């Protein structure tokens, strides 16, 4: 399945996917509708190719990171662990504590992905998890203005009726998939840096001929290699959180160094270096993980 999906992302679709949830900053360009259509098309394609089956979810997550996929698929996979009877509908995870006093949810949840286009919210993080239907009048959403310029929302539930209850979420599966996503992202950023180091010439030679750069790239390659083994062998639940923290640091480090290797050109909106850098920031702080 992962191989088939990898083929799906090849070719002309790849650059569209990389920017399908990236809102330009003051420079015009595609409209939100264009990007939303691309996301809907990619969602249909992924579901059609069996992405919700749950087989090799870690490999799939790494692939999604490598193409910089932005959408509700990883959240939906996590929600389906809690609510296995869910159909093939997109779900967003919303972190907030659910009261068990009645059959409604009242909570403020920040940094909820793709809140404007999912069919359900899974409110998780408390003693119980709740599934609520998106679009209910008791739900208000506001898109965050943030570094990633993606589809992250503040969502307020005010007595929103619950359609299904489940126990508390065990974060381990989601943490490992997010870690795998970050490994894929780091690999893609590294590939971008290596390409640049081979072709950009300064002082009469390719900049990658300088050991200061080539050794740094080699070191990053080895760290990505190690992290890839980690996410496919996560160990205990405690290991899952630590693995996520390690890959979060890796993604931030690789993308920061990718920016340095690209120079000012990497800061340009039309260069993917800055896109990896911003996405690594946003994706590396998702889900509970040790900090500091």
């Amino acid at each position, binding site marked *: 399945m992962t191989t088939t999906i990898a083929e799906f992302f090849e070719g002309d679709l790849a650059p569209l996917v990389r920017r399908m949830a990236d809102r330009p*900053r003051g420079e015009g360009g595609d409209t939100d509708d264009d990007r939303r259509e691309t996301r809907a098309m990619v969602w249909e394609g992924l579901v059609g190719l069996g992405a919700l089956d749950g087989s090799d979810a870690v490999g799939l997550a790494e692939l999604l990171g490598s193409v910089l996929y932005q959408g509700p698929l990883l959240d939906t996979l996590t929600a389906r662990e809690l609510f296995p009877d869910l159909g093939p509908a997109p779900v967003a995870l919303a972190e907030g504590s659910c009261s068990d006093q009645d059959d409604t949810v009242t909570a403020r949840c920040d940094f909820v992905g793709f809140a404007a286009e999912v069919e359900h919210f899974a409110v998780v993080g408390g003693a119980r998890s709740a599934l609520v239907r998106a679009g209910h009048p008791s739900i208000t959403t506001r898109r965050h203005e943030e570094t990633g310029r993606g589809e992250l929302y503040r969502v307020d539930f005010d007595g929103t009726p619950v359609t299904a209850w489940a126990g508390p979420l065990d974060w381990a599966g989601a943490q490992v998939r997010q870690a795998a996503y970050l490994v894929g992202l780091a690999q893609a950023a590294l590939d971008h840096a290596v390409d640049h180091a081979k072709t950009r010439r300064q002082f009469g030679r390719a900049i990658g001929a300088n050991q200061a750069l080539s050794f740094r790239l080699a070191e990053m390659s080895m760290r990505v290699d190690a992290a890839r083994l980690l996410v496919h062998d996560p160990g205990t639940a405690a290991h899952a959180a630590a693995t996520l923290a390690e890959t979060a640091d890796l993604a931030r480090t690789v993308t920061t160094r990718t920016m340095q290797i690209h120079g000012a050109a990497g800061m340009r909106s039309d260069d993917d270096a800055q896109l990896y850098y911003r996405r690594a920031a946003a994706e590396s702080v998702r889900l509970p993980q040790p900090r500091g």
Partner: protein
Amino acid sequence: MTDFREEVCALLCEDAVRAEIAQSRRMPYGQESGLLDVHRRLGKLGWLAINWPERYGGSGATIVEKAIVTEEMIRHGVPENVHSLGVDIVGNAINLMGTDEQKERYLPGLARGETTANVLFSEPDVGSDLGSLGARAEPDGDGYRLTGRKIYNMKAQHSDFALCAARTSTGPVNYAGITLFLVPLHSLGTVIEPVWNLSEERFDLITLDGIRIGREDVLGEVDDGWQVLNRVLPFERTGLDHSAKAERTLAALREHAPPGCEERLDRLETRVRAARLLAWRCIANLHEGKPDEIHSATAKWYTSETAKEVSVAAVELLGPRALLDARDPDAIADGVFDAVFREAPGLTLAQGSSEIMLYFVATSKLGLPS
């Protein structure tokens, strides 16, 4: 000296000034501030370029007072690029190397905070390797025709003129034959196109299509631009701007970090203190008239890398809250963490990249083979 610092702080803490600074950071996407009222206030007091002679709008003070003003402006969040480009780089170069006529013409407006300038060095294919630049100034009567494309400069939309590097002759040594010119930015033959980027402030691609400049617009000597740059660079590479920025970010981070981060914050604070000491060592060198290139390279590298480290640590320690920009109603610390995170990559690239600083220290300080 403490009294002067307190006076500067008192002005920068006024409600109107703070409100203007906050407003300048919440401008709609695609817009950015130029010179603010606070620049003009400082200019009117003779503080903006306080170390310049009084006849050019300064107060005849020393580089130490200038450093205090710069440090406090950044600590208080005044957008610094428009000031550092106009006064600290271009104006300073004119003050050091310009003719009396050039000083009369350009410095008073810069010192009053009424005009600003930008720097046209980098080109689409030329970054750190300035010796390879392609812009050319061909002799034309008693002046020159300047042709070339310049990129990764900032504030062109707010600048009246620019300091531009162009080749005036060729020879076996790449760095010879470069001349610095003071060029108008809004004249026929100059096309400015915005280049949107990661940071809050746009780059510009500036095409100079044979614009006419006179011999009186040469800064320093013809073919001797590299020497002019070497004279000016120690003033640009003190690292004071980066250390002040790191201090400001770290102070905000301490305020908002969750419990359990104290050790990490203490380590960062030690780095930031060291960064400031390196920066002020450079200021002391300049004050004594003894600029030290190795000290400058050390300060530039250490302070910019430290400021970058603090910005990334803020994301790690604060999590998603650090990513909210100043325009989000839930932003913390006026969105400073998002702003510095997006600005951070440029810190270790501009004014000489970290790699150039490391190379210089490796070869010039340690004596390693080049």
